[in-house]
């Protein structure tokens, strides 16, 4: 059996040595640990007796400590121990450069990597988990994998069936300028025919037409310069750290963050930061003004306002600098360009789309009739592309009760399934106005959120992805509180077994500027820490959660019943069945009167 000598060289502390001794013994070595306060002479004298294959030293760096370690190395050489006995060092503030300066053969920085240590002891490199994670290509997981979409509530399924049949019948034969532009754009991707372009421009608003004809950019928007683009490869060169998932011992959920600073270059920086700090995927947020104009711009465009402009060039640039294993969702769930956004997203390499007719046509501001037509077309595109689409339940933020929001999500789930797409509902874990007014979260944030997640399992076997982001309206501008509430909601979602979670930055409640880099890191670190705290242990709700769940289920059923009996989905939105003015929700106006009959 090979002997390893462990030397703390610290007058008091030897916890690292004790840990090493246990791990080395488990790995089949004879680990001899010297007591704290051992002198360099005692270490070398013991080594002359034991003939170890290595001496491992642990010590926190401080003034004159380096000289002590250097003396040990010298004494080991003078005593003739090298090269039969390798010398390794580790400890707080010990760097590889210092290890080299001290003359050690191996230096162990950061937390203990047993594979690295064993490789050192055996004189060859053994790939540790971190190295294997880096060299083995990570695959992009499918958020919908393993879900059957089987309906568990036949009553709800029946009503959804009826509602969605009516939607499909109503949209048949209808089109919009957005659908026409989407079809043209799809052709323009491969066909440079200038006529296609002219026809596209003709379907745009005046402001967008001015861009294509005169090169006029909207206020505050500029093109990215060649020098900026040329600097990107150099700025993003260099070794990335090995991917370290936020999960601690679990396979789920996947973690997403949203981005959309307005500038693709800043976005790339933020995305890479998020990847380096452990996220599995990112969501592209576009500016609201872009959704309110007929037609999308082209080129590499930047501006300083919220949301990054959707152009094929912007999207492709962002994807180019993303880790290939990072999942990418492009938002196109409201506004006048929903179908074309799906076309561009797919062309740029998106993995997920975002389509939500009820929310997009109320809180999202788009005319319900218009978005229903565009939304159905978008779902057909999602099906054709084979891309899952998520359905954000952000209407709750206006004051809509969750039962109505969820009714809307379920309609989208059934609609998507009927058209061959793969839906991912996104119940929002939030301290919404409804929750506040009704006092449903006065006692805690646990029971109601569990109820909201578990009710889905009762209704349909579908992936559930709370966002964007979780903990909405629980954040304050104070950094620590903000990071903690994000982490707590993420831990709750993890306990509930969701497929994915979107988490905020600690700037979530700050509205006077874009999300900052340090704020992203804060929340990611907090989330990692809390998931590490819980490990395999779960947060559990109180029995009250079951009551809330039952009430929610009943409320969903009642809402869908009302919509089914109304027999007109678009009218149901206008009439507030999916969220009324009293709930704080108003039908959108953008695009009103723009639904057209499809030409024969």
């Amino acid at each position, binding site marked *: 059996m090979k002997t390893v000598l462990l030397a703390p060289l610290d007058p008091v502390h030897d916890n690292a040595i004790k840990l090493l001794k246990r791990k080395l013994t488990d790995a089949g070595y004879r680990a001899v640990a010297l007591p704290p306060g051992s002198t360099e002479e005692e270490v070398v004298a013991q080594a002359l007796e034991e003939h170890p294959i290595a001496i491992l030293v642990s010590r926190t760096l401080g003034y004159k400590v380096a000289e002590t370690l250097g003396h040990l190395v010298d004494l080991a050489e003078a005593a003739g121990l090298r090269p039969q006995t390798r010398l390794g060092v580790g400890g707080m503030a010990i760097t590889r450069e210092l290890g080299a300066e001290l003359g050690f053969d191996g230096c162990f920085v950061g937390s203990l990597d047993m594979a690295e240590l064993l490789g050192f002891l055996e004189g060859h490199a053994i790939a540790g988990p971190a190295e294997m994670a880096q060299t083995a290509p990570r695959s992009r997981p499918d958020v919908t994998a393993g879900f059957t979409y089987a309906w568990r509530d036949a009553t709800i399924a029946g009503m959804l069936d009826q509602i969605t049949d009516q939607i499909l019948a109503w949209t048949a034969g209808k089109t919009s300028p957005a659908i026409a532009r989407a079809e043209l754009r799809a052709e323009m991707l491969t066909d440079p025919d200038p006529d296609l372009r002219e026809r596209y421009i003709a379907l745009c608003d005046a402001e967008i037409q001015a861009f294509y004809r005169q090169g006029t950019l909207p206020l505050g928007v500029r093109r990215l310069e060649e020098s900026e683009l040329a600097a990107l490869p150099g700025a993003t060169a260099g070794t990335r750290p090995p991917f370290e998932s936020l999960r601690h011992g679990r396979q789920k959920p996947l973690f997403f963050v949203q981005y959309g600073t307005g500038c693709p270059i800043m976005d790339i920086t933020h995305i890479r930061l998020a*990847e380096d700090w452990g996220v599995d995927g990112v969501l592209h947020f576009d500016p609201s003004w872009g959704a309110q104009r007929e037609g999308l711009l082209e080129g590499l465009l930047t501006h300083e306002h919220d949301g990054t402009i959707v152009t094929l060039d912007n999207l492709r640039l962002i994807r180019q600098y993303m880790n290939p294993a990072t999942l990418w969702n492009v938002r196109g769930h409201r506004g006048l360009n929903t179908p074309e956004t799906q076309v561009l997203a797919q062309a740029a390499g998106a993995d997920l789309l975002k389509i939500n007719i009820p929310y997009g046509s109320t809180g999202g501001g788009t005319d319900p009739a218009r978005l229903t037509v565009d939304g159905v077309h978008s779902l057909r595109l999602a099906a054709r592309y084979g891309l899952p689409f998520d359905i954000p339940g952000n209407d709750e933020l206006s004051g809509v009760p969750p039962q109505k929001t969820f009714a809307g999500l379920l309609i989208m789930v059934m609609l998507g399934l009927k058209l061959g797409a793969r839906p991912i509902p996104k119940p929002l874990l939030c301290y919404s106005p409804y929750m506040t007014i009704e006092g449903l979260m006065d006692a805690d944030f646990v029971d109601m959120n569990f109820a909201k997640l578990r009710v889905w399992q009762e209704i349909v076997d579908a992936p559930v992805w709370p966002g964007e982001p979780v903990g909405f309206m629980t954040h304050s501008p104070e*950094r620590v509180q903000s990071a903690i509430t994000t982490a707590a909601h993420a831990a709750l979602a993890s306990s509930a077994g969701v497929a994915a979670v979107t988490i905020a930055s600690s700037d979530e409640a700050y509205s006077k500027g874009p999300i900052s*880099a340090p704020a992203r890191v804060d929340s990611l670190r907090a989330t990692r820490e809390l998931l590490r705290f819980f490990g395999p242990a779960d947060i559990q709700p109180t029995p009250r959660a079951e009551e809330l769940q039952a009430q929610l289920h009943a409320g969903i059923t009642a809402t869908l019943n009302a919509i089914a009996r109304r027999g007109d989905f678009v009218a149901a939105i206008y009439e507030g069945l999916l969220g009324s003015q009293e709930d704080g929700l108003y039908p959108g106006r953008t695009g009103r009167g723009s639904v057209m009959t499809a030409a024969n």
Partner: protein
Amino acid sequence: MTKALAHVVDALDIETFLYCKDEDEAKILAEALAAELGLPHGDVVFVEHRGAGARVRIRSYIHHPGDHYRWLGMEDGK
């Protein structure tokens, strides 16, 4: 010293993310940042470098225990 800085009870922290190649560069930049901002003796409390940059917290003590505290109306901070 400006009047507002005199109201800092003890420490002023800078929380930021620095574009840099490694932890060593992060520490150098962090201390330089405190100096550029005219803050006394910036100390790097926390640094974590991953990929293109580092999350740092830089601390500068404006008043130490034992000083004559300007926020207590005392004339001299030392």
